[in-house]
């Protein structure tokens, strides 16, 4: 739409601080967008990256604040495409402000918040509400994923054109799939006209029914009803056929099994505009971690078998999976301290996203730049953001982290208002030292 391109991305951005300069020296600069991984430095001016390279490794320009990175990794700040907050409606679980503090502590400089709030973000005024609240209260960039059906009910399309103009960055149906195939076809067809990205949770609600964990041996032993992987793959396969029909851009939000990967690979081989994501939980945990009904590991899609986790990790390494998300989903005692089958789905993950992802690097399964790519330049390109890269003129969203420092997660020290971390008491290797948003340090370890 010519009109819409004129006013594209009207979302209020963090204003860039004028005149201030800071140089990060003695860093290992890793930028997946340019395949850069070398010792050097980055000069930030007026909130933008003014210069970078090995000539800044030791030498700081005069009159500029100097940050010595001590050889640690300086990478683009992470872009997390799937963050649930409780604002509006469930502020006791999380607000945009508390989520943004968790994001900053985790090296996430841009979070895309989901429409599954109360009320659901399905109207122009609500997109505006989120963007204004975020501008006034959040430490990091916040973009709004708007609902693609009214009330997320899967029946009637939302005003995709006007929502996009208001700043909605993509469209989602939250944690539920659109079961009605005709509605899904119409959404894809309609969204295409506006260049809007459809991000879909793929799960056949009828097949899953009331099942609460992955179908298989563990579910059988625990006496829990099992959710079949097929529920995910069937909807994904249907969606890919609808993409082939309509030509609309489609992103499968979080896939979790080998069978779904096959569908995505097939779609990509046919050059369809299909991409997919995976949650950090499905790369680092499996159904056995549920142990004796640990509800903090009850997530959606459910944690699968170890073989599926390994397949997901390999697909990140091969590039078949485009994006890694935290799927940060704050839940409190009211919703989690219940029998497993009655507990809510969801796990917080903003603060542990990067360090958990480093497990894949330390295990030798995925190179650092490939892991970072799925959390920086890939989501940036999908969403049409100009961040997620360290190049001259780009916005200075950066994360500085130590690859090696060991520590143990203590959920009570998490900045998120909700403490439902599946990594509580888990050993981690790697620590976020500093997070920079538009040139401003928004988090510094130990301060």
């Amino acid at each position: 739409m010519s009109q819409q391109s004129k006013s594209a991305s009207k979302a209020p951005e963090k204003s860039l601080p004028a005149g201030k300069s800071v140089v990060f020296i003695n860093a290992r600069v890793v930028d997946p967008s340019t395949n850069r991984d070398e010792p050097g430095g980055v000069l930030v001016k007026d909130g933008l990256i003014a210069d970078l390279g090995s000539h800044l490794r030791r030498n700081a320009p005069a009159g500029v604040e100097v940050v010595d990175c001590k050889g640690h990794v300086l990478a683009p700040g992470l872009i997390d495409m799937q963050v649930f907050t409780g604002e509006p409606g469930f502020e006791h679980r999380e607000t945009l402000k508390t989520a943004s503090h968790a994001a900053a502590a985790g090296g996430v400089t841009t979070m895309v918040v989901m429409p599954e709030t109360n009320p659901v973000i399905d109207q122009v005024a609500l997109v505006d509400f989120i963007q204004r609240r975020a501008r006034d209260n959040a430490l990091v960039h916040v973009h709004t994923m708007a609902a693609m059906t009214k009330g997320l009910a899967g029946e009637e399309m939302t005003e995709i054109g006007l929502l996009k103009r208001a700043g909605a960055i993509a469209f989602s149906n939250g944690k539920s799939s659109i079961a009605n195939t005709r509605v899904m076809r119409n959404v894809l067809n309609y969204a295409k006209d506006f260049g809007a990205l459809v991000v879909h949770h793929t799960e056949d609600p009828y097949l899953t029914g009331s099942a609460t964990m992955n179908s298989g041996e563990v579910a059988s032993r625990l006496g829990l009803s099992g959710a079949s992987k097929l529920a995910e793959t069937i909807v994904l396969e249907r969606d890919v056929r609808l993409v082939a029909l309509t030509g609309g851009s489609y992103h499968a939000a979080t896939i979790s099994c080998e069978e779904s990967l096959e569908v995505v690979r097939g779609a990509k081989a046919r050059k369809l505009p299909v991409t997919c994501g995976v949650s950090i939980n499905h790369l680092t945990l499996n159904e056995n971690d549920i142990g004796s009904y640990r509800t903090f590991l009850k997530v959606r899609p459910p944690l699968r078998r170890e073989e599926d986790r390994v397949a997901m990790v390999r697909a990140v390494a091969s590039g078949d999976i485009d994006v890694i998300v935290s799927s940060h989903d704050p839940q409190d005692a009211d919703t989690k301290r219940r029998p497993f089958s009655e507990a809510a789905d969801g796990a917080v993950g903003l603060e542990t996203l990067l360090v958990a992802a480093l497990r894949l690097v330390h295990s030798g399964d995925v190179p650092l730049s490939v892991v970072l790519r799925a959390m920086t330049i890939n989501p940036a390109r999908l969403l049409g953001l100009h961040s997620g890269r360290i190049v001259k003129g780009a916005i200075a969203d950066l994360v500085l982290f130590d690859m090696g420092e060991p520590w143990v997660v203590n959920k009570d020290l998490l900045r998120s208002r909700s403490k439902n971390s599946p990594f509580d008491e888990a050993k981690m290797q790697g620590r976020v030292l500093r997070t920079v948003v538009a040139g401003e340090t928004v988090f510094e370890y130990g301060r």
Partner: protein
Amino acid sequence: MAKSSTGSELTRFPRRHLLTCEGLSAAEIEFLLKLADANADAIQRGARKRSVLSDRTLINLFFESSTRTQASFEMAGRRLGADVMNMNVATSSVTKGETLIDTAVTLNAMRPDLIVVRHHAAGAVELLSQKVDCSVINAGDGAHQHPTQALLDALTIRRAKGRIAGLTVAICGDILHSRVARSNINVLNTLGANVRIIAPSTLLPSSPERLGTEVYTDMWKGLEGADVVMMLRLQRERMDGSYVPSSREFFHFFGLDHEKLSHAKPDALIMHPGPMNRGVEIASTVADDSRSVIREQVEMGVAVRMAVLEALSAHLPAQEGETS
């Protein structure tokens, strides 16, 4: 004398029914438009009622409610001297479960000369035409065809612009469900216009480019350089989120306002088959703009329908007492 010379010309329209615009030749269309043009002039001069169809019976059989089309056919029939009968389907045996074919057979037994039919199902009028001995005129069958609308639109354009060949006509709105669009695409293409269709993808039929049109989902681009902008009605039940999220969004991206209209040629004609939803597909000020020929379309409707009735009646068997 005058009557017999008209009669010899009428034999040039070689059809008994007018069911569709698909397949009508340019010569056939020109023939009807020429007749209609003369009718329009005559009506404007205040000409008296004619007797071409005197003692002929015209039945208006409308299975779908309509005010303007039914009135227009009735007016056309009366101006030509026909006895016009309006079948009120709402109170007829159709609502008692009679099939369309039984209705046709029953009506045929009454020996009418012309039947004008509107039906909600595509193809219904053609089905009915196979079961009757008289001439049948399609006044709209589902999302298929509405031939007299396309002819009156062509006449309106030609009288305003002096020609149709080479003009760029943009048809905007609910193409998927529109018989007006399909009929116009046929007629305008046959007469040599460049036809564009503009709609969100959810309101386009499949393979739209195969209909002989350029397809746009961006109205601003689709209106660029258009000589004629033809708006279609968006029915309320399409705005509930299954095809279009809301009338507000539809108007924003596909409603004709002055800003979008400014992308068309400065002297672009504004057309609408009616009835209009002001503020949904067309802004009130645009509908009432000096370039709007919406009122003329209604006027041409009577002239065109007279021409069609006249042309088809040439094939009717001679009446008793009439010499050959």
